[in-house]
């Protein structure tokens, strides 16, 4: 039986081997994201829509406050590329204005809802036990009432301003991220690297801030992107029902609601452009969210 126990040949590299620089985590995610064409298309689309809504009015001036009853229901022409609606507003300009409120509301709701949801979820998931049960029961209760029903309920009583709208929508949307983050926290809480911090004497605060939250950032960002999409969608629905910002504020949903009355008259420019904007924007954010989620998977799979 051969028996070799001689020393290994000495070398300049450390015994454990030289560390090979590969990609930092976020660079891998970025690369995977960029390779996903749909996600890239989404980003480009969002940029275009945002530019259209916020920069557009700087070049294309229209009056979105005063009605002009001499110019109602004009078909698209040289002066009004997308025609006018039944109150004489220029449709193209109104699209831009409507987009501003949609994007503002969408992003704001997503931000507020995410912040509330993350805090709630992390506390519930980390401390577990009775606190977790109670907090999650509350979430279950809130989730049982469909948002639109509840919102219509509230809207019949209060007349919304922009701020109030954002607040209420956010209050109804934080449930999603809360559940998600709680689930993640529960699973991360028992990871070995978290236990390692305990063995060093680390306290709960440190674990939450330095270890749990950074490792859930991925899921949070993905979810927040979808939330923007959902918020814009819900806003469109509510505007359609008349339960959102009062006139003369422009909203895409409101334009749709208006335009529906003239469906049989064939005034297509009062309906489809607004509808198209809604779909494009929501689709774009959904693509981005999906792309982010897929590229995060890539990083998780890489050992």
């Amino acid at each position: 039986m051969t028996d070799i126990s001689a020393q290994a040949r000495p070398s300049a590299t450390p015994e454990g081997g030289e560390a090979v620089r590969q990609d930092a985590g976020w660079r891998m995610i970025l690369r995977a994201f960029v390779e996903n064409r749909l996600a890239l298309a989404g980003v480009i689309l969002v940029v275009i829509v945002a530019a259209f809504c916020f920069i557009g009015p700087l070049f294309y001036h229209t009056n979105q406050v005063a009605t002009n009853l001499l110019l109602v229901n004009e078909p698209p022409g040289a002066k009004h590329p997308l025609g006018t609606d039944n109150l004489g507003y220029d449709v193209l300009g109104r699209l831009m204005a409507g987009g501003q409120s949609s994007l503002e509301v969408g992003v704001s709701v997503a931000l507020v809802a995410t912040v509330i949801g993350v805090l709630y979820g992390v506390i519930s998931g980390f401390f577990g036990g009775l606190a977790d049960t109670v907090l999650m029961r509350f979430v279950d209760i809130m989730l049982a009432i469909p948002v639109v029903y509840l919102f219509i309920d509230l809207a019949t009583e209060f007349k919304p301003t922009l701020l109030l709208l954002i607040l209420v929508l956010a209050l109804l949307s934080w449930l999603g991220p809360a559940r998600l983050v709680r689930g993640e926290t529960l699973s991360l809480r028992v990871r070995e690297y978290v236990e390692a911090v305990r063995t060093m004497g680390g306290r709960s605060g440190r674990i939450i801030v330095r270890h749990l939250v950074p490792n859930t950032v991925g899921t949070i960002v993905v979810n927040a992107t979808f939330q923007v999409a959902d918020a814009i969608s819900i806003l469109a629905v509510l505007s359609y029902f008349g339960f959102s910002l009062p006139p003369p504020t422009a909203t895409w949903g409101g334009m749709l609601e208006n335009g529906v009355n003239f469906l049989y008259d064939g005034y297509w420019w009062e309906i489809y452009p607004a509808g198209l904007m809604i779909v494009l924007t929501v689709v774009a954010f959904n693509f981005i969210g999906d792309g982010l989620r897929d590229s995060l998977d890539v990083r998780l799979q890489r050992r």
Partner: protein
Amino acid sequence: MIGFIIRRIGQAIIVILGVTLIVFILRHLLPGSIARAILGIRATPFAIAAFNRQNGLNNPLPLQYVSFLNQLIHGNLGYSFKQNMTVDSIVSHDLPNDLVLVGVSLVLALLIAIPLGIVQAVRRNKLTDYTATGIAFVLYSMPAYLLGLLLIAFFAVNLRLLPAEAPQASTISGVLADPSGLVLPVATLTLVTVALFSRYMRSSAIDSLTQDYIRTARAKGLRQSAILYRHLLRNSLIPVATLVGISIPGILTFGLIIEQLFNFPGVGLAYFNAAVNGDYPVVFGITVLVAVATVLGNLIADVAYAVLDPRVRYD
């Protein structure tokens, strides 16, 4: 398994109680008093006082809540002064129509989405997958009423093939007697539901396809169709129960939108009209009903899951 079911029922009861509490609180948040809101602006103080006494509105709040609960348990959802009917009668009149709409759409949606998800998983990242995903995405991103509008515009206005309005008959048999009016509403609801389901089904099927037991099935020399049917399908079906449960609030919301659009005589439309007209008892009554339906739906879904999944059944 029995233990699991009992616990879930307990959970559901607590959630329902919570919902009733929240609705109760909302009720009392109405600007002005309830009496004024219901009786109208021109109600005399005398009428208001009488109303308050009659409806126990002078009692301490906890007591009111208990009597509210008591009411609900007895199936009394309130009384609509504006329409001069009990809320229950309004609901029971419209509910069968909703069952038809939601039921048919749900079944159709499942029949489409489940095989679609499997096909997408098998042909992952190929043309079929991209097209299906793309279409599902667009449908998903479209507000339900926009889709409905498009369908109306195309089939009703341009082609004049189908009516834009749902059947208005007052009994369910009447509704069913005019199927052409049902086509567009059902189609719209089915399509948005398929969009909702297919994203989940696709990723669930992809997950299942990479499982080791699929490799074992291939190692047995089974044909692809046998593998898909006997192994993949069964394992993908189990989460469908939970999926349906989670989607119920979404489906009910879509239902409401579609009812409004097509003037479909369902509970959602009744709710909407009541909200517009300030008919608060109807609004609250139906909110409670919808919430309870959601909780029950989730409960049934979870129980179905427990029955279907042997890991829960034999524990």
